[in-house]
C-alpha cells in the first residue's frame, strides 16, 4: 500500500511539472499580402507579405492531413508574430542539407548548389558538378536518410534541411527539428501532374530569394512541355503501349491515372491500362499482362534493365511479348552517373519536358526527328 501511495505521489509531481505553452496570435489580421500564382502544383502556396513570405505545404506526403507553415524572414529583419507551429527560416539560406536527389538539379538550376553542405547517401548523386563538390569534401555524406549522422549534421550547422516523408513518421526529421534546425517537407513527388512536380522549383527558390530565376526556368520547361504535347496531338496513329516489369512473379504496372500514364496520354499513345483509375501501380500476375499486352507495339519503362539479355535472365516470360521480339522496348537507363545512379530519377522530376519529348520521339518517330533520346534508350 505504502508503495502504491509513493507511486501515485511521484506521478502527480511529475505530471504537475509540465510547463505551460504560450500561444501568440497575430494582433492585426488585416496585413496585406500577395499570393504567388502556382499553376500546376497543388501541394503548396506562397504568400508575400511586406515583411516576410509564408509558404503553406498541404501535401507533404500522400493523403497527408497536416498543413505545414513556413515563415521566411530576411536575415536582418525581425521575426513577425506568428502561430507557434510555423517553422521560421532566415533567408536567403546559405547552408542547406537536402534529402532527395531530385533537389540536386533544382539547386544547380537555381545556381545555389554551392549552398549544399550535406546529403545522406551521396553515392546516389549523379550530377557531375555536385559529384565534384562531394569528392572535394565540400558536401558531406550524412549516412542513410533514415539514420542521419546527427553529430556530423550538427557540426555542419545547416540553416535549413529540405526533407521528404513517405508517411509523416520520420524520427530523424523530428529529431533534427529538436536541434532547432528548421526542417521543411518537399512534397513534389506527391503531385499528379508532371509539370506540378517541376513547379516545386518555386518552393525551393523561395528559401534562396531566387524566385525570378525559378519563374523563368519553369516558364521555359512549361512552354517546351506544352509545345511537345501540342505537336503530338496532330498524329493519327496511336501506338499501343505496355509498361512496367516483374518482381518475382508479380508484374508492377503503372495505374491508368498514375504519373507515367499521364505522359503516355500527353504523348498521344494508347496505354493499354488507360481506363483504370489507379494513381499508383497495379500488381498483376504474368498471365493477365501477357493476355492483354502481348501484341503491344511499344514497351516503355521496363524497369532498370540495361539490355534484353538481362531481361531474359530475370524472367523467360519477357520474351513472349511482341515488343521483345520486335526490339521496341525502351527504358530510362540511358544516362547513368559515375556511382551507378540513374539520372532519370534525379533530373526527371524537374524536366518533364525531356521525358515527354523522349516518349513522343519513341512513339512517333516522324515528329521529333532531331531529338536525341535523353533518359530513355532502346534495349538491344
Amino acid at each position, binding site marked *: 500500500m505504502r*508503495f502504491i501511495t509513493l*507511486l501515485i505521489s*511521484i506521478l502527480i509531481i*511529475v505530471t504537475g511539472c509540465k510547463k505551460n505553452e504560450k500561444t501568440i496570435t497575430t494582433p492585426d489580421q488585416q496585413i496585406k499580402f500577395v499570393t504567388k500564382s502556382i499553376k500546376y502544383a497543388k501541394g503548396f502556396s506562397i504568400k508575400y507579405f511586406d515583411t516576410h513570405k509564408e509558404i503553406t505545404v498541404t501535401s507533404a506526403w500522400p*493523403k497527408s*492531413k*497536416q498543413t505545414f507553415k513556413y515563415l521566411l524572414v530576411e536575415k536582418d529583419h525581425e521575426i513577425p508574430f506568428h502561430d507557434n507551429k510555423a517553422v521560421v527560416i532566415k533567408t536567403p539560406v546559405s547552408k542547406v542539407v537536402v534529402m532527395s536527389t531530385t533537389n540536386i538539379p533544382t539547386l544547380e538550376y537555381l545556381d545555389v548548389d554551392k549552398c549544399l553542405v550535406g546529403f545522406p547517401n551521396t553515392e546516389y548523386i549523379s550530377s557531375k558538378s555536385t559529384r565534384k563538390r562531394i569528392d572535394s569534401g565540400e558536401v*558531406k*555524406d550524412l*549516412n*542513410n536518410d*533514415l*539514420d542521419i*549522422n*546527427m*553529430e*556530423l549534421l*550538427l*557540426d555542419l*550547422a545547416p540553416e535549413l534541411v529540405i526533407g521528404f516523408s*513517405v*508517411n*509523416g*513518421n*520520420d*524520427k*530523424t526529421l*523530428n*529529431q533534427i527539428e*529538436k*536541434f532547432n534546425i528548421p526542417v521543411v517537407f518537399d512534397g513534389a513527388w506527391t503531385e499528379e501532374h508532371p509539370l506540378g512536380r517541376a513547379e516545386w522549383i518555386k518552393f525551393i527558390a523561395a528559401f534562396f530569394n531566387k524566385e525570378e530565376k525559378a519563374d523563368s526556368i519553369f516558364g521555359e520547361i512549361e512552354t517546351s512541355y506544352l509545345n511537345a504535347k501540342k505537336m503530338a496531338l496532330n498524329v493519327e496513329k496511336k501506338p499501343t503501349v505496355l509498361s512496367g516489369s516483374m518482381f518475382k512473379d508479380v508484374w508492377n504496372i503503372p495505374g491508368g491515372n498514375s504519373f507515367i500514364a499521364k505522359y503516355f496520354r500527353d504523348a498521344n499513345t494508347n496505354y493499354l491500362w488507360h481506363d483504370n483509375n489507379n494513381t499508383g501501380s497495379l500488381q498483376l500476375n504474368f498471365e493477365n499482362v501477357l493476355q492483354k499486352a502481348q501484341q503491344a507495339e511499344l514497351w516503355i519503362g521496363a524497369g532498370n534493365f540495361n539490355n534484353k539479355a538481362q531481361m531474359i535472365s530475370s524472367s523467360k516470360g519477357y520474351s513472349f511479348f511482341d515488343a521483345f521480339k520486335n526490339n521496341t522496348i525502351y527504358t530510362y537507363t540511358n544516362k547513368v552517373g559515375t556511382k551507378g545512379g540513374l539520372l532519370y530519377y534525379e533530373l526527371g522530376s524537374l524536366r518533364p519536358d525531356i521525358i515527354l519529348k523522349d516518349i513522343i520521339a519513341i512513339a512517333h518517330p516522324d515528329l521529333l526527328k532531331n531529338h536525341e533520346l535523353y533518359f530513355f534508350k532502346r534495349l538491344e
Partner: protein
Amino acid sequence: MPNKSTYKLAFTVLIILLLFCFFANISLGSVSISNSELLNILLGTSKNNSLHQIVFNYRLPKAFTAIIVGSGLGVSGLMMQTLFRNPLAGPFVLGITSGASLGVALIIMGSAAFGGILVGSLVTKWGIVIAASLGSFLVLLSVLVVSSRVRDTMAILIIGLMFGSITTAIVSVLSFFSSAEELQQYIFWGFGSLGNLSWEEVFILFIIYFFGILLSLSSIKALNTLLLGENYARSLGLHIKRSRLVIIVATSLLAGTITAFTGPIAFIGLAIPHMTRQIFNTSNHKLLLPAVFIFGAIIMLICDSIAQLPTSDYTLPINVITSLIGAPVVIWLLVRKRKMVF
C-alpha cells in the same frame, strides 16, 4: 564463496568503470572533440555553439539512454531467466518485442490494409512510441490473461513464444503488401537506435524505467526463493501467482518502454545476466541484480561508443554491435570457466 569485502571492492571497481565509460562515451563520436574542449563545454565556458549542441543535445541524452537501456534490459533479462529457470530466457520471451513490432508495423505499413484510418490518427511525433507501447501492452495482456489459467510457469514461456509467432506472421503479411520505402522505415526501426531521443523523451523513459526498477528491487526476495523451485518456494510461504505477476509487470515496464523508445535492442537482456553470473560466481539476487544493473549500463555504453565508429563519418546500427561484441564474450566466459553458473 568470496566474502563481503571482495564484493565491495568489485562494486567500487564497477562503478568507477561505469563513470569512465560514461565519459569515454560522450567524448567519442563522428566529430572529434578534444578533452579540454569537452571540459569547457561541460563547464559551459565553450564558445563553439555547434559543439555545445552536439554534446548537450545529442551525446548526453544518448549516453543516459544507453545506461537506461543496458541496465533495464539486463535486469529484466535476469528476472525472466530466474522466473522461468531457463538460461535461454530474455526480456522479450513474453512477446514484448513482437507486440511492439506489430504496433510499429501497423503504423508504418498498415495504410494499405486500413485505408489510413489508423495511420491518420496516429501520425504524430509520438506515433511510433505510442504504437509500440500499445502493441507490447496488448500482447502482454493477452499472455497474462491466458497464463492466469495455467499453473505451470513454463507454460507461460510457451504461450509468450506462440503470441510472438502470431504477431510475426501478421507483420509478414503487412510487409508483403507495403512499399519499399515503408519496408525500409520498418527495417530501420528494427535496427534499434539510442541517439534519437530528446531530453523530454529521455525523461519520460526514465520515469517508467524508474518504476520498473523499483518493482524489480521489491522482487529480490521472491527471485531468490524462486531459484529453489516453485514447490519449495510455495512451501516457504511465497505467494507464487502474485510474485509472478509483479515480476512480469516489472519486466514488461522495463523492456516494453525501452523497446518503444529505442526499438528492439538485441542480445543485451540475454547476455548481461550470464556475463555477470560468470564473473561474480553467485546466484544471490541481492548481489546479482545491482551487478547486472551496472554491468548492463557499462556494456551498453561501450557498444554505443563502438557503434559510433569514432572519428569516421559512418555509424553502425547498435543491434549489430551488441550481438557482435556480446556473443563472443559469453562464449569466452563459458569456455574459460567450463561450467555455467545458473
